[in-house]
């Protein structure tokens, strides 16, 4: 089955962020780097995960004479002292940690400065990474959870052939849109059935617990809910109305993939077109400027 030619899912798939990886300077000295080590730049897909880039990043710094012989799993990243959750998609981490509002007058903070660490993995703050296998496990776990939310069971995902299940992950890490979406399309379109619940996670600043509640896509009368309806339902203090506020810059906004989606879009449409490869809508809510 060929992947649907959807310009929106394609644009989201192709979205990238320039990231500047620098060594922690005290570690650099301890690991034998003799001179200042130049940072390493990657144009990282927003839909990807940091562990998928670790061996490439490691190779660069080791080639620059860093004496590191540990596991890829010992390597971790931080931004401004906050360890980055490697099981979150890169684009989500950027939206969340920079708190950058696309409707502001200033340009986005790019390249994104990220510090690479080769020691002192913070086991109290970060889930231990078994590098790529753990990332794949998490990814498939999210896809199963999305299926469960949509259908009340994980039958659809579990009934995919082993080949198809592997193709989802392979398509993601090899950045092959057709490979990924030819399988994912079936999960997301759900045979045209209205999902029971929408797979959605909402992130607030300041390390708030992530909001993940079962959200029905329709109201009691069967009318489709919009993104604004959902935000109003989940965060009524921040979104007192499902409609956009008069004073746009002072109002909180949802941000996903670095854009502010319109509140009027139906939530089912958003779920099918704006989701991350793990099938979830990961929406960051940023407060007013």
């Amino acid at each position: 089955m060929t992947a649907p030619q959807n310009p929106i899912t394609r644009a989201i798939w192709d979205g990238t962020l320039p990231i500047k990886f620098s060594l922690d300077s005290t570690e650099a000295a301890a690991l034998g780097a003799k001179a200042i080590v130049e940072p390493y730049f990657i144009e990282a897909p927003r839909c990807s995960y940091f562990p998928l880039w670790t061996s490439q990043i490691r190779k660069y710094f080791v080639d620059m004479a860093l004496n590191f012989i540990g596991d890829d799993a010992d390597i971790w990243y931080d931004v401004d002292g906050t360890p980055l959750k490697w099981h979150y998609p890169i684009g989500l981490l950027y939206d969340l940690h920079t708190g950058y509002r696309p409707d502001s007058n200033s340009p986005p903070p790019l390249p994104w400065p990220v510090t690479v660490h080769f020691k002192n993995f913070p086991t109290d703050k970060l889930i231990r990474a078994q590098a790529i296998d753990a990332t794949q496990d998490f990814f498939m776990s999210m896809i199963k959870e999305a299926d469960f939310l949509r259908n009340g069971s994980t039958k659809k995902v579990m009934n995919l052939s082993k080949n198809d299940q592997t193709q989802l992950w392979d398509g993601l890490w090899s950045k092959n849109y057709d490979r990924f979406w030819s399988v994912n399309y079936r999960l997301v379109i759900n045979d045209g059935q209205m999902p029971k619940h929408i797979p959605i996670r909402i992130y607030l600043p300041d390390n708030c617990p992530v909001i993940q509640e079962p959200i029905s896509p329709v109201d009691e009368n069967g009318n489709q809910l919009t993104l604004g309806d959902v935000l109003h339902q989940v965060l009524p203090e921040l979104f007192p109305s499902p409609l956009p506020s008069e004073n746009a810059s002072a109002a909180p906004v949802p941000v996903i993939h670095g854009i502010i989606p319109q509140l009027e879009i139906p939530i089912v449409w958003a779920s099918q077109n704006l989701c991350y490869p793990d099938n979830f809508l990961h929406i960051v809510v940023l407060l007013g400027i």
Partner: protein
Amino acid sequence: MSLPDNYPFLTRKEFDIAAKLFIEQSKRSSDEEPWSWVEHESLPTVPASEGYFTVDYHIIYSTSYKVPVLYFNAYNSDGTLLTNDEIYSNLVHPLKQNDIKSAGFHGAISQQDHPTLLLPFYYLHPCETATLMTSIVSDSKMNNNKLQIISLEGYIRSWLSFVGPVVGVK
């Protein structure tokens, strides 16, 4: 006796009721550490004495899977976390270790962000819990052609008696 509307799944309200009933039962029982209810606050870790380690068990409602989930973490007396290998060798029953390690992300002990503390905790994946709770009752006798289901009073205790011992809950 209150029954879940949609056994084996629980609504959040049903979970609240079941959990509080479970806590009352555990307080009355003399042979176990009593459980307590904590409403989303940050939890202090009670330091263990030298040579011991502490295990914190949390029973948390999964909004996605609509069942309880067992989260846990183990700390040395100096407050550092036990490693993955130490968890297996100290908490998991020796006969079950291989099964769990090879179960993949379904049955294995894996880590996840604690839903309110946002720190890494070990947990038992909930995707098989509904199947487990269904199989518990389908083994019991049919009563006038109506399948017995577990009440809210007994839900947590039954569930925990299956998943708990796997990771050291007695």
